[in-house]
């Protein structure tokens, strides 16, 4: 295996609605921010990979026009995944493992605001049996939360604590969309939005973008003092049919964590892509995190949940903390699909 590290991270300030910019205009500051921080241009990049989905823009092949943000001339090696940018990072990591290139640019972006996001997300469900019912993303998450409560594995109070802790942590995150400091007990006084979920249990709808630069071995060491080395990365998928899964656990996260080697050392920090509060409780268990691990110090997806980007940001947040020397070993997690259907786990470490 080659040593591959995250050496640069940039993201936009996430907002409920970015009306004044198109997608490429919104993306450019993230791409150039990530390149500029390490003094690179696209000419120094061996491979470029992006993550986004046409369903958010309502336009086919929408990623092609955002490629303008990187300057793809003379021709570049480039690829796209119709997934969160965390999966684009995985593809870039595989490409770097092949040894053909030493550097990669990974970016992802989403304007979630043009459509009705919970409705748009129904299009990722099984097209024959479930999608025609237009089961929206909040209702499906509520089914999962209720299953968790019924199984005695979580309480609404514990869920409120996740919200209170995440949103308070987001006060220190300059990119966050939603941040406030209110006690969990006060949150429980609110009426349910879709029972048992209250508004605080749900993520904001976000427009935003992020970019990351990867480099292998000496290419990383030459450019930054403390690269955040990817020591393990794995992703697993479960059935699209919710009735075939135990929604109170995340078997795919557990497997991915095992293969990525989460338990091989102490974890200082974990950034979990848990859009709904109860999902953090499921993921903590699946990842086997100790109680003293700092979970989502950025505020996580409850602070900003730009689709197709929030997972890549989790990797970026862990890498940033390692680069700054605030953590030595961290876990980043990304999810996609309804009720934590697919999950990616990435273990990052600093040296020395």
């Amino acid at each position, binding site marked *: 295996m080659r040593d591959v590290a995250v050496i640069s991270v940039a993201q936009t300030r996430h907002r409920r609605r970015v009306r004044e910019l198109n997608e490429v205009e919104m993306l450019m500051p993230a791409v150039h921010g990530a390149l500029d921080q390490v003094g690179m241009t696209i000419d120094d990049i061996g491979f470029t990979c992006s993550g986004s989905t046409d369903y958010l823009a309502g336009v086919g092949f929408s990623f092609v026009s955002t490629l*303008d943000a990187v300057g*793809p001339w*003379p021709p570049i090696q480039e690829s796209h995944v119709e997934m969160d940018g965390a999966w684009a990072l995985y593809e870039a990591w595989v490409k770097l493992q092949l040894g053909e290139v030493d550097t990669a640019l990974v970016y992802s972006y989403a304007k979630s605001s043009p*459509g*009705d996001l919970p409705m748009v997300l129904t299009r990722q469900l099984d097209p024959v049996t479930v*999608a025609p019912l237009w089961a929206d993303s909040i209702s499906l998450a509520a089914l999962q939360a209720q299953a968790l409560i019924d199984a005695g594995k979580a309480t609404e109070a514990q869920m409120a604590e996740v919200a209170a802790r995440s949103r308070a942590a987001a006060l220190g995150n300059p990119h966050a969309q939603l941040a406030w400091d209110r006690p969990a007990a006060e949150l429980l006084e609110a009426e349910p939005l879709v029972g048992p979920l209250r508004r605080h249990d749900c993520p904001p709808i976000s427009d935003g973008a992020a970019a990351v630069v990867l480099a292998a071995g000496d290419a990383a060491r030459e450019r930054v003092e403390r690269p955040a080395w990817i020591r393990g990365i794995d992703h697993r998928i479960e059935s699209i049919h919710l009735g075939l899964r135990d929604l109170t656990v995340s078997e795919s996260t557990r497997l991915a964590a095992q293969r990525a080697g989460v338990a091989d050392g102490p974890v200082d920090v974990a950034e979990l892509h848990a859009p709904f509060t109860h999902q953090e409780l499921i993921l903590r268990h699946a990842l086997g995190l100790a109680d003293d691990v700092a979970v989502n110090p950025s505020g996580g997806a409850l602070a900003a949940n730009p689709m197709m980007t929030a997972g890549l940001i989790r990797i970026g947040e862990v890498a940033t903390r390692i680069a700054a020397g605030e953590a030595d070993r961290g876990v980043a997690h990304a999810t996609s699909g309804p009720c934590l259907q697919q999950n990616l786990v990435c273990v990052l470490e600093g040296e020395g």
Partner: protein
Amino acid sequence: MAEVTLPPSLRDVEPVRSVRTPARLDYQFTAGDATSRFLRNVARKRIVGQRAPGGRVYVPPRGADPELGQPTPEEVEVAQVGTVTSFCVVNLQFYGSVMEIPYVSALILLDGADLSIMHLIQEVPADEVRIGMRVEAVWRADAEVEPTLESITWFRPTGEPDDADVRIPGEDHGTGLGSWVGGVAPTAALVRNPRTGQGGPGGAT
């Protein structure tokens, strides 16, 4: 594999061979900064593009220069006269079409621009349209002009002599050699890098 059998209650039911699940999603499109400025100018009967730091003028602008990957902050007005760089004669009526066939859809390089816009050519028989033909915009009446390219009803010939040396924008990528030189795809040596200025005909500059 175990044999699959139907329960008795389903034995005489007609098998399902297909299902239809119609879906519809509505979006509120926002054009973004560059395209909004372009469309607002169209509503004033002006065609305004954006110039990249390297010199190319994009019409319509998207706010990004695909060569440099950088913003294109400088606005420039271009002419409403241009040259046909490519065209297609439409001989089939299709769903949603409001045009009488045959008609011509063309790529038009406006004077001062480095990117063609697609529009209709009218006021000339379809079989007389040709690459290099000089054309001009024909606008709707003032009261009907809106922030849409449909405010230009079509383009018509100006009667000027053809541009025999018509540039096909995007084909030469600054090499001046066309995208394929002697049937060979551009190599690193033939390609000018807009960020470094390296490469292109004559080597490094």
